[in-house]
């Protein structure tokens, strides 16, 4: 039984943690919250320079050539500090989609720049408040031209390339395809949008006869999209685990510091049991995330099930820890000056970024039904 990360992977994790502790304090995150910046450029550049962005990209495309497990340990540290950087958009989504479905030309064109951080990438699926499913997608791709509106697109203002889910005319699940679009061309207009978590930039993007090219096979975009989402769900679960642990620790530290009725509030069972529940959810989430990581790294057949489990477990843990962290702080926790808001905002952002928990629970049970055909 060797259900743990290797010593090398743990060293990488320490390295990421030290860098982020130094460069990405809550005060640094706050500078993004209180400015128009889409992300923290110094932190982002540092992550790129240290090779974290290229960690799981093969060497022939300018990466370091490590694997999913290395990306997982970095993700946990990014989540711990609620890092205001386009890492998930550029790496978990854009780079992974290109790795999985891209032609040799597409990989050669985009992966080296994503690996080095020279450019930022993203994936655009949502079209406002509705599920981005094959029957709902209105953006079209035909004759090499993309038309439509995507909202919200993570890091949509700063990204140079986007993977876009578009209708290509088929029926049912075959109605959609993924396409690759250079966002710096004339047919693309974009503007930033307000979200619940301003530490992560989001945009509305309009495509007006923009040049684009297919990623993978036409009509197979939904299957590819789900595979990319499954991988990202595992990686985001590690961010959520890191965030949960940070929120738990923040709440615990405050409960030891704050006195009421002549005692530390952390000595009251109402608070102790709340923190114990955070810990229980954190450990369940961590265990499910580890299994997701193992299956992702081995490209196992039950990735969809493992990824859904990791995501559901981590989403619940982070939701609970972030909201109850504010509750433990009392009034001060609700102020702009205090730090619990960073995890409250981020927990909801991550809970919705790949679709809600309900959606993933449905996906999970669909897998159970397949694997348990009576």
């Amino acid at each position, binding site marked *: 039984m060797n259900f743990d990360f290797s010593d090398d992977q743990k060293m990488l994790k320490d390295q990421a943690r030290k860098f982020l502790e130094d460069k990405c304090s809550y005060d640094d995150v706050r500078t993004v919250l209180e400015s128009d910046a889409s992300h923290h450029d110094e932190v982002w550049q540092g992550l790129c320079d240290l090779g974290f962005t290229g960690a799981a990209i093969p060497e022939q495309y300018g990466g370091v050539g490590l694997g999913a497990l290395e990306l997982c340990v970095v993700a946990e540290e990014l989540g711990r500090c609620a890092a205001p950087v386009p890492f998930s958009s550029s790496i978990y989504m854009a780079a992974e989609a290109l790795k999985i479905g891209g032609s040799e030309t597409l990989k050669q064109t985009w992966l080296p720049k994503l690996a080095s951080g020279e450019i930022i990438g993203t994936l655009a699926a949502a079209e406002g408040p509705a599920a981005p499913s094959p029957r709902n997608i209105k953006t079209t791709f035909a004759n090499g031209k993309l038309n439509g509106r995507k909202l919200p697109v993570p890091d949509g203002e700063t990204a140079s390339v986007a993977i876009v889910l578009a209708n290509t005319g088929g029926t049912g699940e075959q109605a959609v395809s993924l396409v690759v679009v250079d966002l710096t061309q004339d047919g693309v207009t974009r503007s930033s949008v307000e979200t619940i978590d301003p530490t992560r930039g989001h945009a509305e993007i309009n495509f007006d006869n923009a040049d684009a090219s297919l990623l993978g096979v036409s009509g197979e975009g939904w299957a590819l999209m789900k595979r990319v989402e499954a991988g990202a769900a595992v990686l985001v679960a590690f961010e959520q685990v890191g965030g949960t642990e940070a929120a738990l620790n923040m709440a615990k530290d405050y409960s030891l510091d704050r006195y009421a009725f002549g005692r530390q509030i952390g000595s009251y069972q109402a608070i102790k049991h709340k923190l114990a529940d955070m810990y229980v959810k954190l450990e369940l989430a961590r265990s499910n995330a580890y299994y997701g990581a193992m299956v992702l790294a081995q490209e196992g057949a039950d990735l969809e099930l493992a990824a859904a489990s990791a995501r559901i477990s981590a989403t619940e843990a982070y939701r609970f820890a972030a909201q109850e962290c504010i509750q433990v702080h009392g009034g001060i926790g609700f102020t702009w000056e205090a730090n619990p808001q960073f995890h409250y905002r981020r927990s909801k952002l991550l809970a919705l970024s790949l679709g809600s928990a309900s959606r993933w629970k449905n996906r999970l049970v669909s897998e159970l039904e397949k694997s*348990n055909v009576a």
Partner: protein
Amino acid sequence: MDFNDTPEEAKFRSEVREWLSANARQRDTSNAKAGVSTKSEAERLVRAKEWQAKKAEAGYAAITWPTEYGGLGGTSIQSVIYSQEEANYDVPRGFFEIGLGMCIPTMMKWATPEQNERFVKPALFGEEVWCQLFSEPAAGSDVAGLRTKCERDGDDWIINGQKVWTSGAHFCDYGIIVTRSDPTVPKHKGLTFFFLDMKTPGIEIRPIKQISGGSGFNEVFFNDVRVPDSQRLGDVGEGWKVSLTTLMNERLAIGGGSGVDYEELLKLARETELEEGPAIKDSNVREKLADWYVQSQGLKYTKFRTLTALSKGQVPGAESSIGKIVSGPKMQDLGSFAMDIQGQGGILQDGDESPMGAAFQNQWLGAAGYRIAGGTDEILRNIVSEQVLGLPQDIRVDKNVPFNELASSGKK
């Protein structure tokens, strides 16, 4: 990252497999968890004793115990490997866990070499069964608040009082007991610990009928029960210290939750019609199913993390403390929800009419007790918050007060 055995572990596992296949019958997995033995307890005990003797002869009854006590001198991971493999076989369980998991380890630490010579092997080979006499009507979670008293009489002690929730007392041969020797000092300081023969005159055992209908527990009454001073474990007044040895082993001895889980719920949801169609198509059913699947998997992989530490010869982290906090309420809620799916028919607790032999109804009733036994949900949260997270202990109003001056029910 993988689930593979090390070469040594794989070798041990194949030895265990070979021995089990030669000595036991494979479990019938087609009728896995719902199956309830129809044999009487007495019949099952006879079978359990035979199996225990066979297991002890082969060295598998106490893998981590030193060889001089009849153990294998093995590692914790070997013990886990044996349990994993044994779980695939239809062997009797549930009679020796408390004795070998809690009582005998306490004896090994506190009894004389001669006493251990006399008692350890018969317990290991299933010849003598042991029980633990701690809880009382007025001392549950606060077990140090116990009132059963012992008084010195020459070379003996006279015990009077009542114990409760004593698993298996009616078929046990020996027991360990903690009693109050001095009520004039604070509660933890006035306790004294003994082991005794359950056939000693003055001991009366009455079964407790549980809400689930079964009677695994007993009340045990002590009327002038005479115990020689040589059966005292630890010094007079040091009984709490001895108790801690037992209690530290409790979490290891109380097994993980078994019973019906998401697989059975999935099966039920497929086979049961709701107003709008099969329950499995209902989004509320699907969400609950997913939640319990994720909890089950989370517990399973948490266990794997603990095993990884054991496999590497490290001390496991605190993560194993979450098991019963999650599994108790899950058993109860899952049973309850499965009954909801059955609609008005869900009230039936009928082996023929209710799905899966009324397994959900039985679990719903039984789980109410599982959430209390071996540490309530609330006590376990105190343990996690204090011992894992490092939060302060509760303020103890009884800490420095003589026991006989404490407030209690009916005496404020």
